């Protein structure tokens, strides 16, 4: 699909030479690290009136890991977008700072009750940041050209499906807090759905590049919308059925919504047909109604959403506490370490946004949403600039995942929509989520490097015209 672009004279080619912007990235990373570290120090000072030693460990390790990632990008993807890595790092450090702050609260509570202090989760989270960054580097090393991923289209699809269904395997699945999203291998627990979304996006992008011509075909027009042919309805119905299955078997509303939304969004971008969106919305509504009438846990979620204060002491406790947290934070927030985010159960996972909203206020919560918006915008910009449709669809898919996941999680925590358990990308405590999102970041960097990299120019001295050859 990539049509060769003909450039002008060699002089012009030299003039449009792309700057790598790696120094800008380094500057932003240093800034992000400083702000994140300051947050952690303030949080410790505010909550414990001293800087606990673990915080210095976390700050040092995070700095080293991010510097390592930056150097890897310089070598492996020198033309990559300079904003993506600092943005992801900012979100990750904010998350770690809040987890450290909650660790300190837990330690203080344990000390007050003469108990052993619990594990310091922020240290684990930095380790997982290291693992995630390492995975991103591996992605950059192994995937020298993202288009190579297209070679294994159906293998990706199969892998994604297996990962999605893995928790349903007896003896492997693990149910935590009513949702069986986890698998357990030895001492490790893992959420395979997080990796599934990475792999499925590759599959969807690859599949849609192959089939989008036929999926865009129109037989009839209804109300000005082109209606797809009946036989082309197969794929969307299959994905819909899988989403319903996940909802039924794993009581996991969030993943189901995300997978289906991802596919519909990519289908729309690939074909440019609005009818897919309409169809997607109709199927979502139908699926929602089915889920509501069939599954008790969905009904409970909706009831709690409609009137959380009637369930303030049981199923609604978490959301009500989160709302109190947001309200008490107000515009400016209580300040790092000076609020009571530990009152929200599992504040370090699903509800980390409520913790940030309480201590950093509306200002901080806006900043977090805007950081995600920036990351999404950089991904879509890369898609827009991409000359190969596979790369464009791939990064579009990741933008959709980020957008949907942030909306579903933050919307659930702020009671905009019923709460469905999903992790906050780059922020929530948990290895699977961090690993998956750093792999996504690696792929985003890879595609953006490809997009911004100047084409090699071959100048034949004996020829008046210049021929441009697309890179292998």
């Amino acid at each position, binding site marked *: 699909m990539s049509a060769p672009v003909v450039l002008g004279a060699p002089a012009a080619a030299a003039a449009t030479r792309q700057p790598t912007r790696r120094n800008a990235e380094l500057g932003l990373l240093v800034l992000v690290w400083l702000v994140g570290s300051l947050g952690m120090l303030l949080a410790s000072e505010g909550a414990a009136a001293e800087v606990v030693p673990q915080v210095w460990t976390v700050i040092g390790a995070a700095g080293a890991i991010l510097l390592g990632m930056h150097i890897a990008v310089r070598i492996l993807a020198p033309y990559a977008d300079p904003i993506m890595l600092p943005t992801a790092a900012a979100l990750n450090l904010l998350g770690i700072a809040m987890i450290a702050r909650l660790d300190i609260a837990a330690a203080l509570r344990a000390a007050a009750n003469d108990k052993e202090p619990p594990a310091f989760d922020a240290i684990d989270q930095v380790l997982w940041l290291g693992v995630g960054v390492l995975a991103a580097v591996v992605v950059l090393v192994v995937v020298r050209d993202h288009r190579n991923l297209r070679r294994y289209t159906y293998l990706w699809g199969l892998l994604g499906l297996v990962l999605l269904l893995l928790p349903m395997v007896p003896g492997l699945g693990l149910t935590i807090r009513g949702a069986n999203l986890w698998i357990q291998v030895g001492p490790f627990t893992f959420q395979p759905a997080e990796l599934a979304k990475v792999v499925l996006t590759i599959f969807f992008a690859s599949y849609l590049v192959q089939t989008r011509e036929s999926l865009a075909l129109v037989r009839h027009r209804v109300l000005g919308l082109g209606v797809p042919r009946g036989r082309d309805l197969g794929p969307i119905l299959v994905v819909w059925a899988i989403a319903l299955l996940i909802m039924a078997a794993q009581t996991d509303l969030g993943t189901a919504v995300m997978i289906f939304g991802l596919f519909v969004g990519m289908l729309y971008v690939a074909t440019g047909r609005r009818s897919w969106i309409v169809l997607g919305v109709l199927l979502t509504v139908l699926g929602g109604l089915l889920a509501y009438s069939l599954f008790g846990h969905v009904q409970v979620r909706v009831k709690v959403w409609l009137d959380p204060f009637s369930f303030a002491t049981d199923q609604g406790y978490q959301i009500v506490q989160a709302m109190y947290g*947001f309200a008490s934070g107000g515009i400016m927030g209580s300040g790092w370490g*000076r*609020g*009571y985010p530990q009152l929200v159960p599992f504040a370090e996972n699903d509800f980390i946004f409520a913790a940030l*909203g309480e201590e950093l206020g509306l200002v901080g919560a806006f900043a977090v949403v805007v950081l995600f918006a920036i990351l999404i915008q950089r991904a*879509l910009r890369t898609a827009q600039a991409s000359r190969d449709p596979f790369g464009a669809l791939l990064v*579009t898919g990741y933008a959709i995942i980020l957008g949907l996941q942030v909306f579903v999680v933050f919307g659930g925590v702020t009671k905009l929509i019923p709460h469905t358990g999903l992790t906050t990308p780059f922020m929530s405590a948990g290895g699977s989520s961090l690993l998956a999102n750093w792999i996504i970041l690696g792929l985003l960097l890879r595609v953006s490097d490809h997009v911004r990299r100047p084409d090699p120019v071959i100048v034949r001295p004996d020829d008046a015209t210049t021929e441009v050859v697309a890179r292998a």
Partner: protein
Amino acid sequence: MSRSLNRLALGLLVLMVALLVQLTRLQVLRADELNAMPGNQRTLLIEYSRERGPILVDRAPIAESIETDDTLKYLRRYPDGAPYASATGFYSLVFGATGLEKAENAVLSGEDPRLFVDRMQQLIAGRQTQGGAVTTTLDAAAQQAAWQGIRGKTGSVVAIEPATGRILAQVQSPSFDPNKLSSHDSKAINEYYDALDADPDKPLLNRPIAKTNPPGSTFKVVTAAAALESGRFTPDSVLPGPATYTLPGTNVELPNWTGTECGPDGRVTLAEALAISCNTAFAWLGNELGADALRDQAEKFGFEEAFETPQKVATSRFPEDPDEAQTAMAAIGQFDVRATTLQMAMVVAAVGNGGVTMRPGIVEQTSAPDLSPLETFEPSQFADALTPEHAAELTEMMVGVVSNGTGSSARIPGVAVAGKTGTAQTSDDRPSIAWFVAFAPAVNPEVAVAVAVEDAGTNEVSGNQLAGPIARDVMEAVLGG
């Protein structure tokens, strides 16, 4: 693909904006409502995480916050406890706040808008928010004298600076220990509160300002003031003072407390009638003046007004539309006349203050955490109750009560004391309330005081015997200091 990508970007942007809108609703628009929800323990935790400002008498705290190491960071402590409980109130996890803790909560908690700049400075400096201080008008010596006098009895004492309306003493008995209601142990708080609540003597009732009693004969000061203000009577006017007075329209005979005539041939001057507390003369006088004149006079002293010191004061009442018999009874402070102890102190304070009633206040100054003043007590006139001439005449009459009448127990050597006794019946089967109201010195008084002792004896002597000495001690404490 470019067009659909733009649309997708727009769609995702809409989702992000929806989040921002919802955040604004929670954190700004609905924040106050959510913060005020019952069961929102955050609001409480935040309140207890601040160093609440102290309540001071002179410069000594009668309420202060000390740091603890439990979940609630600060503990409220009342160094003197019960003697000051009527003023401080309590600050309880379980039962909220009362007294000045409630009335001045904005300053004490630091939430007062005038403390906004301080709050911002503290926030930026990373310091814990601190509340402002409330300095009371209370006089430690007067308060102590009042407490020593009333403790062990049931009743209340209020002392006022007549020229300004500053409250110098405000004591209730029985009282309670606010420390025990302001602890961090909600079980202990509940147990103590239940015990107080079950006590028939109602230790939680703020008697000086929240309970109204029939003022009995102390109300004769109001009736006498109305008589002088009517222009028809002087202290020397002669009134009929027979042994009994038949209430108009009834067969009921109202006797004098002595059971005898008030003077030779049942005739007595107004001054003499007040001195010996002659019921029949004042009952007759009440009907001569009429209920409207009595009510007007009472209102000029502060009856029918809901004062805030800023503690909320119960409204003292004069009956709305009494018939002649009821008017006669009202003129001697019976029937439906009801007054707080503070109100009766205000009556005599106004007489001593040349006839000018001052608004009562208990807060000398509120100040920011750095001790810069926010608001300082400004004396404020409420009404002109008497002309200065009439006030002087009435003062002289009241001096007579103490020097050679029923109020002998309040005499202070070398000081002219003006006073009036009273004994009020609440109901037939209950013991009466012994009253004493007074001010001293008679000219340019420094202190006016009202003492009400409940469940006292049944005759007029009890006001002099039970309440008089307490009034004297409080006045001496002020004059001596």
